[in-house]
Every structure is written in structure tokens, then in C-alpha cells.
């Protein structure tokens, strides 16, 4: 699905959080949103998901304005997982993934063969079919995150919106989640995800948007966005950027000791914006 933003501006109680964002994504493209805490990544995702309403500007899904969709219609197009989701009761994985069919079902309508097939596929694509009957409290963090991804995939959406899908996960799970996401993108899903880990983002993203205080500091290919100057501007630290020997993608090197030497005028402190 094509996702377009035109001059998107959002404010919490008249305090601007996003200002004049524009971008265009085609079918099957992965966009990574990066930037410091409070730079507006989650807010942007919530705007695209239709949960928050922009103050001005517009969002288009396949050239149709977001406001023209009902919440149910949106849920059939967009599968989304917010940050640090907590499940209130100890459901089984299957029960949770079946919830992904809600936007397709009438109030009294049963799951049906089409729904069961979508659930089966979602469980398979996320490699959790074997513990479909287990309760969510018995899963590890990585397994739980895949279950949440499976809920979104059971919606049979045309795009995925993911907020920090790999945070707090061990590296094996981080890779597994990212591989699943890339596979779905290759199958045609447009993906927008907020990521903390710049190097992981560089490996998997087609496009990268560096946000800082609600503004788009840079938008482009990872190698265009991840430059020492831009990182310094956004995060206020000195880094070195190298090309990965193995994948050719830009990789950030933190430079803890050298930082003091390089910034002869003294380290410039930068406070994260709130929210």
C-alpha cells in the first residue's frame, strides 16, 4: 500500500510534536523511523494509525485520505503493534491471534474457514504455530513479540506499523523479528517502524527517517541519513560511521573515549524533548 504524508503537523495541547512532515512510501518498502526519545516517532506512528488526529496536513493510504476510513476499515489495512504492549489477562496465543480477525467479523459472526486460515498463516509466518495453545505468560519476550506481530498479520493488512518491535529482546530474537518483517515486506506489505538500534535499522530499512524534535532532520537511504554530522545534530554525540564489511550497510561506531578529544570546545549537552 502506498502511504503518503503531506505537511503532517501534530500538537499535544497546542505544543507542537510533529512539524510539517512529508514522505512517500511504495508497496513493500520498509521505512525506519529513528531519532532520540521524544523526537516524535511514536506520535507519528499513532497519527498514521488514525489514533491521533493531525492538527494540519494529511495522510493518504493509496491516495485516499485517512479521515475517510472508519476505524474498522483502517484495521483491515493497517496492522499495528504499539510499544511495550501488556496483555491484561492470561490468554492463549491462539486466542490472541484470533482477535486479529475482529475487523473482518460482524458482532455475531464466527471465525469461519477464511478466518481460521488467516490465523494459521499468521502463526506460521511468525514461527509460533507450535506454541499456539500456550498461555502468553509462559512465553519469552521474543516469543511474545512474535505473537503480537501475528495478531497484526491475522488482520491481513496491507501495511505494518511497528513501534520498537525489538526493544528489550536478545539479539537472536531481534534478528528473527526483523527477518519476519522483511519477509512480509517482500510479500508486498509496506512497513513503517520506529527503531532504537540504528545499526539494525540500517541493515533492514529501505528508507530511513531521522527525526529530531518533531522535524524530519533527514530522509533517504540509510547511507544518506546515517552520517556523523546528522547523528551529532540529533543525538549530540560523536560517532564514526563505517560500511559493514559483510552487508555494505552503514554501521555506527560509538566513540566513548575519543569524544572528549574531538569536541575540543567541550561536549555540547543536548536535552531530549519531552513526550
Amino acid at each position, binding site marked *: 500500500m502506498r502511504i503518503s504524508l503531506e505537511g503532517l503537523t501534530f500538537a499535544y495541547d497546542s505544543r507542537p510534536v510533529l512539524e510539517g512532515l512529508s514522505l512517500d512510501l511504495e508497496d513493500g518498502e520498509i521505512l525506519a523511523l529513528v531519532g532520540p526519545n521524544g523526537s516524535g516517532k511514536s506520535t507519528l506512528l499513532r497519527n498514521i494509525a488514525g*489514533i491521533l488526529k493531525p492538527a494540519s496536513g494529511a495522510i493518504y493510504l493509496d491516495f485516499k485520505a485517512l479521515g475517510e476510513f472508519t476505524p474498522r476499515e483502517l*484495521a483491515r489495512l493497517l496492522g499495528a503493534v504499539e510499544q511495550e504492549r501488556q496483555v491484561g*489477562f492470561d490468554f492463549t496465543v491462539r486466542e490472541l491471534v484470533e482477535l486479529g480477525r475482529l475487523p473482518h467479523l460482524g458482532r455475531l459472526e464466527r471465525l469461519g474457514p477464511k478466518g481460521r486460515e488467516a490465523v494459521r498463516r499468521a502463526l506460521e509466518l511468525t514461527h509460533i504455530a507450535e506454541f499456539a495453545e500456550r498461555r502468553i505468560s509462559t512465553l519469552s519476550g521474543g516469543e511474545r513479540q512474535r505473537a503480537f506481530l501475528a495478531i497484526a498479520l491475522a488482520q491481513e493488512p496491507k501495511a505494518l506499523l511497528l513501534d520498537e518491535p525489538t526493544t528489550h529482546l536478545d539479539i537472536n530474537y531481534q534478528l528473527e523479528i526483523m527477518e519476519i518483517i522483511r519477509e512480509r515486506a517482500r510479500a508486498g506489505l509496506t512497513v513503517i517502524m520506529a527503531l532504537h538500534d540504528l545499526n539494525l535499522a540500517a541493515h533492514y530499512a529501505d528508507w530511513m527517517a531521522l527525526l529530531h524534535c518533531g522535524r524530519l532532520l533527514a530522509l533517504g537511504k540509510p547511507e544518506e541519513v546515517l552520517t556523523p554530522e546528522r547523528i551529532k545534530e540529533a543525538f549530540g554525540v560523536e560517532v564514526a560511521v563505517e560500511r559493514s564489511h559483510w552487508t555494505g550497510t552503514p554501521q555506527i561506531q560509538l566513540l566513548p573515549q575519543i569524544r572528549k578529544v574531538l569536541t575540543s570546545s567541550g561536549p555540547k549537552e543536548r536535552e531530549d524533548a519531552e513526550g
Partner: protein
Amino acid sequence: MSKGLIFVILAGLALASLLGATAVGAVTIPLGKSLALIFRPDGSLQSAIVREIRLPRALLGFAIGLALALAGATLQGLFRNPLADPYILGIAGGATTGAAIVISLGWSGPLTLPLGAFLGGLLAASLVYRLAKRARGTSPFSLILAGVALGAAFASITSFIIFLTAGDRRLSEILFWAMGSLGRASWSYLWALLPVAFLGMIVLLLRARELNALALGEEGAQHLGLEPERFKRVLLAVTTLLTSTAVAFAGTIGFVGLITPHIVRLILGPDHRFLLPASALAGGIFLIWADAAARTVLRPAELPLGIITALVGAPFFLYLLRTRPGGEMR
């Protein structure tokens, strides 16, 4: 054990309890005789006891247990908080105050009483909802604390009304609320209560899947195309209606709404499509037998029903507080 079998057992138990409870009370009537009298009245005193007192009383107990357990199960799902229940959140306290005001004004009647209770309950529910919204994302205890504080405030207003009414013949009528009893059961009460309980149950059952989705949190539910703000208000209004009607007809009967959904969840899991109807049946069964105990423990005197349910419920609540500190799972 399959879920279907559990429902058959629960339904059978409910029917057996309704009929069986007619044999229990101050006057001993053998079970066989009481059953025979339900279907073939013979005009005797025993026949009147069974048909005009005990059977409506068992039905009232069942309907009130059903209403409170349903309200409890729904509130727990709504607030994603296993410690929620109509009493702990102060909704029943608001309803009691509303009923007490109606009585003290001398307006007491089969329609005005539930209406007064409903208005009081609605006020409490909207207050606790607002307080809980502000507390979102913090400890589940803030909801409980808000509810307990509200409950205490309403209890003091109720006490004040009782104080003002002291010496009046209406006093005994108000005091009845403070302790909870099915002693006023009659068929006319039932015709007012049963439709409310039935309709409330239908509305809640139709929303069971959405309650499941709410377990993912407000935002998670929104990603599934739901509008939790709207839907939560509807459910809160229905639970308040169930609670207020129960309070209006039987007074303070705590902990049924808290314990029943917990025990059912342990057996059936958290899926509200099964949890809600099973809690409703189990709550009804529990209250029939709690009332039977209230009528027989100090025979021929009758204990207030609220004493029995609190005696069972309070230790259970403390146990939950200790074993589920985060309140996140189950």
C-alpha cells in the same frame, strides 16, 4: 474437561440449587415434599412457604448473584484489573446512597428505588472512571484506591442519612441496605429484576469479544478497529444498571462480583465469551447457597446475607492482593 460440559454442569447445578434451596429454612420441609409442592400446591402453610417465600427468594438470590458476578467480570475486563468489582470500585456504594435518599424522602417504590440506586451508581461510576483514566499507565492499585475512597465517601453519606432518619419508621428500611438480605423477596420484585438482569446479560455477551480485545490495552484495541472510549462507557453503564438493581432489591452484598469471575477464570481461562456466562451462572448458584446458609446457621434467626458473603470474600480478596501484586496476569 470441555467448555461445553462445564456449561451443562453449571446449568444443571443452577436448576438443582433453585429447586433444592426450597427445602432449606427455618421450617424443615423434606426435599421431596418441597419439590412436589412447587409443581402441585395443596393450599397448606408449607405450600405457601415453598411457593410464595422460598422459591421467589431462591430466584431473587440467583438473579442478584448473576447480576453482581456479571458486573464484576465485566469491570475486571474493562479496567484490566483483577481486583475490580462493583463494591470495591464504589459503584454499589453510590447505589446504596441513592436508594437511601429515596427511602428517607418517603418515595420508596418498586420503580423509584432502583431508579434512585441507578442514579447514585451512575454518579459513582463516572467518578471512578474519570479517576481511573487519569491513573492510566500507573499502578492498578490507584484504581482500587480511588474506588475505596469513593466507597468510603458514599458510605459516610449513607450513614448521615441513617442518622437523620433515626427514630423514624423508615430507619429499619434503610438499615436493611447496610447489611444485605433477600428477606423481601416476592414475585413482584422478580418481575422488575429479571428483565434487567436478562437484558444486561445479553448486551454484555454481545460485547464479550471486544472485552477480549481490550486485554491488549486501549491502543491495542484501537489497532483492531475498536473505539474503546465509546464502548467502555456503554459497558460501564450496563454494569452500573446491573449493580444498582441488585442493590435496590437486596442491599449490600459484597464480594460475589469479585470472587466468582476469578474462580471461573482459573477453570475456563480469560475468554469473556465463556467467562461472562459461566460467571453469571456461578454467581447465581453461590448466592442461593449463601442465602441458604444465612437462613439456617442461627436458625430460627436469620443472618444478614452480606455477612456470609463478606466472610467468604474478604479473606479471598486479601489472598489475591498478596499473590498477584502486579495485577497484570489473569
